[in-house]
């Protein structure tokens, strides 16, 4: 019998969660919701989002699943962290803990590791995950975009470098398994039908500029800065040019970057995102740039979706909508990016110079979780296309994907906690030798800002002014 690896186990665990989501959120309530929606669609002033909010489009099971995954995160708080906790939180956290412990305990068994030892250590990692969400929900930290991924790494580093990691925790330190399972779930959110949301201008700003910036930045890092680690170089380049932390995670997993390299890329992205979220809209406002152009510029350059929405909202509704849509189209690029980097790394970079490798060796080295990621993406893209638009919005976007994205958030949180627990300050410090990662990020982002602004102007004001007129209308 073939041995289960982290990649194959991640695909299995990811699809178990996806199957649960599809069964509970799509199959079970389908007939009832579809009939209600068809009846409601003919009424004047129908809005699918308003309908979705007003009608409990799920059932007891979906409500329980959604409430549990959402409720296991502490609430928002200002000065008193205890106010973030409630009885509901305790119940939800216990249920979610057992679900994840059993699921990943089974994954450990498949990989011939001790399931009982895993569960004991998992208690500790899950507790760090809750603390990370607690800090992320502090009002000032939340407002600056300091999310759970940052706090999970910081708390993990604090424990590993100040207190030392208890021995019983080690069997549960499986960052790659959590990340790869999370990436399979992320695949479900990569919907190719979203690509044409605003037609060609969106594709040119997101899918032409971004790869150019990515490749140029990688080349700059190798040839000019002479960064010794190609994996660090590509992780930072992808993180800066595509969409921040999620791109960094996908790239790092596809090229097998080290946990310190991923941490470096994530740290850089979060700092620059916080700065750009405030500085870029302020600059756009100061120079009187039109909302469509400003929105496209923001969407193409600021890393994280949440920060893009915040920066766009600062300028106005049109800018917000354009910025968020451009960023969404860029998000979809992650699917192609992960696949392309996995293939390139397997066939070229990891290959000994001058040696030809046959297809079986490439297949052997290929990170298989990428197939799960693409499979989930294709499955959900087809599903959305097959369903009526409103039914897809209610049952898939607001239902199944809402659940899988919350689960994916938890898995990334556990992954970053594990990374922090197994990294140390000295190794991290060595990543910044000569300040090259910082220089790479700044130079790449400067190119990104220039090219995106030029392409946005060219597309929205020269090539397709009619689309711009409609967006402004």
């Amino acid at each position, binding site marked *: 019998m073939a041995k289960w690896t982290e990649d194959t186990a991640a695909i299995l665990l990811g699809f178990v969660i996806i199957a649960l989501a599809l069964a509970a959120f799509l199959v079970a309530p389908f007939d009832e919701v579809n009939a209600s929606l068809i009846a409601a669609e003919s009424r004047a002033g129908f809005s699918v989002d308003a309908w979705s909010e007003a009608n409990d489009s799920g059932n007891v099971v979906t409500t329980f699943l959604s409430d549990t995954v959402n409720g296991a995160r502490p609430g928002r708080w200002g000065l008193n962290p205890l106010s973030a906790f409630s009885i509901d939180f305790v119940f939800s956290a216990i249920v979610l803990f057992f679900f994840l412990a059993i699921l990943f305990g089974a994954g450990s068994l498949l990989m011939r590791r001790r399931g009982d030892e895993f569960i004991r250590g998992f208690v500790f990692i899950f507790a760090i995950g809750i603390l990370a969400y607690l800090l992320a929900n*502090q009002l000032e930290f939340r407002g600056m975009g300091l999310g759970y991924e940052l706090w999970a790494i910081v708390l993990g580093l604090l424990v590993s470098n*100040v207190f030392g990691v208890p021995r019983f925790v080690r069997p549960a330190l499986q960052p790659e398994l959590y990340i790869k399972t999370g990436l399979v779930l992320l695949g479900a959110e990569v919907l190719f039908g979203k690509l044409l949301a605003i037609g060609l201008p969106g594709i040119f700003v997101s899918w032409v500029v971004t790869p150019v910036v990515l490749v140029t930045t990688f080349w700059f890092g190798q040839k000019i800065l002479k960064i010794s680690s190609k994996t660090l170089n590509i992780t930072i380049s992808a993180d800066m040019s595509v969409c921040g932390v999620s791109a960094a995670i996908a790239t790092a997993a596809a090229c097998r970057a080290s946990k310190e390299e991923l941490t470096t890329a994530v740290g850089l992205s979060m700092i620059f995102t916080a700065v750009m979220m405030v500085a870029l*809209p*302020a600059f756009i406002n100061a120079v009187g740039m039109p909302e469509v152009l400003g929105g496209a510029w923001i969407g193409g350059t600021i890393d*994280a979706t949440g920060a893009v929405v*915040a920066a766009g*909202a600062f300028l106005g509704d049109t800018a917000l909508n354009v910025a*968020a849509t451009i*960023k969404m189209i860029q998000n979809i690029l992650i699917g192609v990016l992960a696949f392309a980097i996995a293939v390139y790394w397997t066939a070229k970079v990891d290959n000994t110079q001058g040696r030809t490798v046959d297809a079986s060796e490439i297949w052997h080295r290929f990170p298989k979780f990428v197939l799960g990621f693409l499979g989930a993406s294709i499955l959900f893209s087809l599903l959305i296309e097959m369903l009526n638009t409103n039914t897809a919005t209610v049952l898939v976007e607001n239902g199944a994907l809402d659940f899988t994205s919350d689960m994916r*958030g938890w898995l990334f949180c556990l992954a970053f906690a594990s990374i922090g627990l197994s990294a140390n300050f000295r190794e991290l410090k060595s990543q910044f030798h000569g300040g090259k990662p910082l220089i790479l990020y700044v130079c790449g982002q400067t190119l990104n800002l220039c090219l995106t602004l030029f392409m946005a102007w060219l597309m929205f004001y020269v090539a397709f002014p009619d689309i711009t007129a409609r967006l402004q209308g």
Partner: protein
Amino acid sequence: MKVKVTGLLLFLAGLIVLQQVIAFGNQRIEVLEMQSAVIKDRDIDPSALFYTESRLALAAEKQMRHKISAAPAGPR
């Protein structure tokens, strides 16, 4: 033991200082004040990683599609 306690206290002190610095900036620096007001009013989570985590991002796409397909083009 002393190192562990000192490390923990320094971490907690760092958190409090960071929170106070951001709160001070939000009250005293105009651009930060405006940005934090927008985030609060529209209930935006700036740390959302992907479009599926933001209701506003999901709604934005629908509004864009609607505007492009429904409204007549303006004068060139």
